[in-house]
């Protein structure tokens, strides 16, 4: 595989002559990382302007600056933009740029996939903002609660644009996460054991894993909503037997871990900035790394705390409250780690450090109000008030955006080779601290006073006007601070002082190469014997490995094709699990006996026979793989062709079944059984088709003699997927045809 990467470098070098156009064709992780960041900055400005418009509307009571509908569109687009077009890309951008440098790799594991992941984003962004031109931007909130988002209540295409663009961006995010995970697992330089990677790398690996498991619930919900809207199903329409609550479950199963998808990178950035400017290694590396892993494990079990007010029942509320309190522990641990790192350190108050310290304080405020919300009665009292708005903006801006600014000031010299101006940086810092706390601090009080969120205006209740005015005026301080940053960036690019390779005397590998790094990243690497290789190289007499040992590298690197296949399969498995959950939810109910059911409509025996074909294709695939690794190409091709044939037979069976059902009037909009049946089996059929395309490409390559025993691992990676499709079918067959769990 290494030859392939080298070839890509050659193309990347050739590209650089094309000027601006080369950015479109680039597969260099640094350029793609920068593209991610620039896109995020662009949409930060757009989302910020939307926020300012919202604040202008709310500055005085009974304002008519915006129409109610436009206000709804603005807060929907503000939320969606900030989550999907700022938060996701900016962190993926930093990960893309920094991770290969930090682990001493030449590039990410799959440079072309990386470019594809990025270009999905502008595509999704255009789709999302195109909706303004249709005259109906999405206005159902960034969470698009059903039934508001279903056809009877939102008949204009705004929500459709919202769904499609989120699905497109979700595909890009999953592909990007697979790439990051494979890079960290498979491409580390010799000596860089997983216990030695910089905390940024470890935490971003955890974030990648979290993205892999958290985007699929959103995708399955989006698919179902789209089927509702376009094909007339009723998954989320209670009037026709659907469940609006199911949308909330699925959405928050995505939405809550998504908070950690943002919080983890902020932790990652702060964990690099604070030690460097305290001149100490991080206090309790294993605690920070371990607690980040625990966050990933726990984040999936707390979503329902967004739903305390919908009436889940006391038992469910208590358990989710407990789980939510539990997840505060690993987050709290880290606050102590960072504080202890500062303790006794020789602190340098650079702009980056100031932002990191402000992060600590403000994130604690946001975290503590989060713990308040974990308590069910407080949640009931304050839900849908401005207290919630204050809480999550303290987490997202006071915590995460401040960490991002710290990261910007810290890594800007590495990325551009120029230093940012510290004086301007401090002006920006104070503008943001005042602006941020002014805007959102007072919203806590507004929330206590009962001001509801998502309402375009308010009556002149005592105190509301003053507090809202403070909030709106302060928002402009943040805008001014942002302009200062933009000015700082432009002026330092034009005439900033040169940074040099390691201006901060930092510890990790990215500071070992020049600023900006060359296309191939490193000319040479120092010996990696501890968590701070650059410190060791620059201060050999005080090298870390002399005083404290870390687990050595065993040199084992899994195959990246198989690693990525497994990561993909995990993600897809969750997608199918949720579709099957929807099937079980809608078909386990006795009262919905009208219309066709699985017992009356399905021919179990015939489908069972066709299933045998699909399952035996797994066996023939296994045989093909064995022949390939033995070097028997004829046998390999024979069994591969047989696998494809068996898959096709299965699809033919499915086509016959669909045809018969449709002839009998069982269509996707008939009832909930039909909707869930066609959704689950249809998506499975789509996956079989995808697998067949991949296998056919393999067969063509085998014909041309490209598939040698050496490359059998790539083939094995497709095998992981193919076997997975079969396993999914076993689950589908057991649940739908054999009636398990009903």
């Amino acid at each position, binding site marked *: 595989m290494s030859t392939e990467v080298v070839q890509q470098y050659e193309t990347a070098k050739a590209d650089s002559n094309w000027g601006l156009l080369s950015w479109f064709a680039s597969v260099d992780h640094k350029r793609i990382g920068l593209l991610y960041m620039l896109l995020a900055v662009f949409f930060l400005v757009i989302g910020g302007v939307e926020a300012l418009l919202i604040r202008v509307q709310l500055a005085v009571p009974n304002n008519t600056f915006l129409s109610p509908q436009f206000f709804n569109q603005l807060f929907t687009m503000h939320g969606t933009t900030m989550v999907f077009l700022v938060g996701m890309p900016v962190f993926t951008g930093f990960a893309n740029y920094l991770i290969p440098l930090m682990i001493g790799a030449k590039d990410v594991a799959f440079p072309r996939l990386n470019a594809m992941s990025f270009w999905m984003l502008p595509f999704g962004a255009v789709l999302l903002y195109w909706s303004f031109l249709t005259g109906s931007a999405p206005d159902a909130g960034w969470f698009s609660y059903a039934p508001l988002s279903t056809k009877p209540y939102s008949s204009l295409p705004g929500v459709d644009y919202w769904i499609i663009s989120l699905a497109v961006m979700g595909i890009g995010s999953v592909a990007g996460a697979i790439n990051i995970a494979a890079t960290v697992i498979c491409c580390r330089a010799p000596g860089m054991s997983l216990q030695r990677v910089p905390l940024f790398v470890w935490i971003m690996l955890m974030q990648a894993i979290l993205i892999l498991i958290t985007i699929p619930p959103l995708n399955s919900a989006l698919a179902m909503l789209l089927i509702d809207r376009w094909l007339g199903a009723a998954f989320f329409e209670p009037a026709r037997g659907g469940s609006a609550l199911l949308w909330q479950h699925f959405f928050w199963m995505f939405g809550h871990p998504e908070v950690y998808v943002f919080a983890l990178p902020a932790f990652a950035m702060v964990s690099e900035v604070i030690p460097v400017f305290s001149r100490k290694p991080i206090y309790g590396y294993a605690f920070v790394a371990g607690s980040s892993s625990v966050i990933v494990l*726990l984040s999936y079990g707390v979503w329902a705390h967004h739903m305390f007010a919908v009436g889940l029942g006391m038992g469910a509320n208590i358990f989710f409250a407990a789980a939510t309190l539990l997840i505060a522990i690993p987050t709290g641990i880290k606050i102590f780690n960072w504080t202890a790192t500062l303790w006794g350190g020789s602190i340098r108050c650079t702009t980056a450090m100031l932002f990191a310290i402000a992060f600590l304080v403000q994130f604690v405020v946001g975290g503590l109000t989060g713990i308040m919300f974990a308590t069910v009665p407080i949640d009931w009292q304050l839900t849908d008030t401005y207290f919630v708005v204050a809480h999550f903006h303290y987490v997202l801006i006071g915590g995460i955006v401040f960490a991002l600014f710290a990261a910007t000031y810290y890594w800007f010299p590495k990325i551009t080779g120029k230093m940012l101006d510290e004086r301007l940086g401090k002006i920006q810092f104070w503008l943001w601290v005042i602006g941020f706390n002014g805007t959102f601090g007072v919203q806590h009080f507004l929330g206590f006073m009962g001001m509801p969120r998502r309402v375009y205006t308010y009556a002149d209740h005592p105190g509301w006007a003053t507090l809202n005015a403070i909030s709106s005026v302060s928002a402009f301080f943040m805008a001014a601070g942002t302009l200062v940053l933009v000015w700082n960036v432009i002026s330092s690019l034009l005439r900033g002082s040169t940074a040099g390779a390691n201006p901060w005397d930092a510890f990790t590998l990215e500071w070992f190469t020049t600023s900006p790094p060359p296309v191939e990243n490193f000319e040479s690497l120092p010996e990696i014997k501890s968590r701070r290789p650059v410190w060791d190289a620059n201060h050999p007499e005080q090298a870390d490995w002399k005083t404290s040992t870390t*687990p050595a590298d065993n040199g084992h690197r899994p195959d990246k094709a198989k690693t990525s296949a497994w990561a993909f399969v995990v993600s897809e498995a969750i997608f199918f699990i949720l579709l099957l959950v929807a099937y079980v939810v809608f078909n386990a109910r006795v009262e919905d006996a009208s219309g066709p059911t699985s017992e009356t409509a399905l021919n179990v025996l015939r489908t069972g026979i066709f299933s045998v074909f699909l399952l035996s294709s797994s066996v023939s695939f296994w045989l093909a793989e064995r022949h390939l690794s033995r070097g028997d190409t004829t046998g390999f091709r024979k069994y591969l062709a047989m696998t494809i044939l068996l898959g096709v037979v299965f699809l033919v069976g499915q086509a016959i079944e669909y045809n018969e059902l449709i002839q009998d009037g069982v269509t996707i909009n008939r009832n909930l059984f039909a909707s869930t049946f066609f959704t689950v089996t249809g998506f499975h059929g789509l996956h079989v088709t995808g697998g067949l395309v991949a296998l056919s490409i393999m067969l063509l390559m085998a014909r041309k003699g490209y598939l040698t025993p050496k490359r059998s691992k790539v083939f094995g990676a497709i095998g992981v997927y193919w076997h997975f499709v079969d396993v999914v079918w076993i689950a589908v067959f057991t649940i739908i045809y054999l009636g398990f769990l009903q």
Partner: protein
Amino acid sequence: MIWDHALWHWTSLAWLVALVWVALYLIVFRRAAVHGLRSLVLGASLMVLAFVSPIGVLADGYLFSAHMVQHLLLLLVIPMCLLLSLPKEKMAQWFENARLDRAGRMLSHPVPGWVCGVGAMWLWHVPVLCSAATQNAGIGCLRDTSFLLAGLAFWWPIFAPVQRYRLPPLSGISYLFSACIGCTLLGIYITFTTITVCPAFANPVDRLHVLTSLYDAGLTPAIDQQLGGLLMWVPPCSLYVGVIISLLCRWYSNTETVTPPESPGGYGRPFSTSAK
């Protein structure tokens, strides 16, 4: 109400089982370390608790949630205590025997353990089986035994007394994380489904005349099943996360590059994560 005489089953066979365990342990491992004995006594007491206390009595046809507590004790907690109680030196000697070694190695593969642990949860909550095991003492006994055995198989790759049968920490973490997803799914299903997972608990025969007080306390069948589902979901995952944290600690504290593959006292020593 918890001290109501009817809610305690003082003549349960669990006493006998627990006593046999302790006696056997003392006879076989005469010079065992104290902490091993401590785990065993903990396991034996939990065994008694699971059957003698109201947990056991109410699990017998009254409360699905009590059944779930008993189920988790039998499947997860007691087998873990039993495995942790085994003295490593002695075990290392025993498992030098070729046949035992083969069995130990077979169980150390993650698939059988995972299937036993997660499969036992799913299988015994198929409505027919769940009701049958509650209503028929013979099947109930079979179920409880299968829980204990499945639990031993499940924890073997994590807590086997001989180091070489344990999974490397990162694999152990994925093992437990996927097991957590397995019981989460079942927990979610039981919590939110509208059908009765275990019909035996929907209309209990009120042998002990406590049903009214149970309902008065709010434990109606619907709430009871919801609680059961949540118990299936949150406590096992918390336990797994706890074990995952301990595995992570081991992974990070491991500073030795190579460990002799057959270290007799390997338990508790730092060991290598190198994939073999």
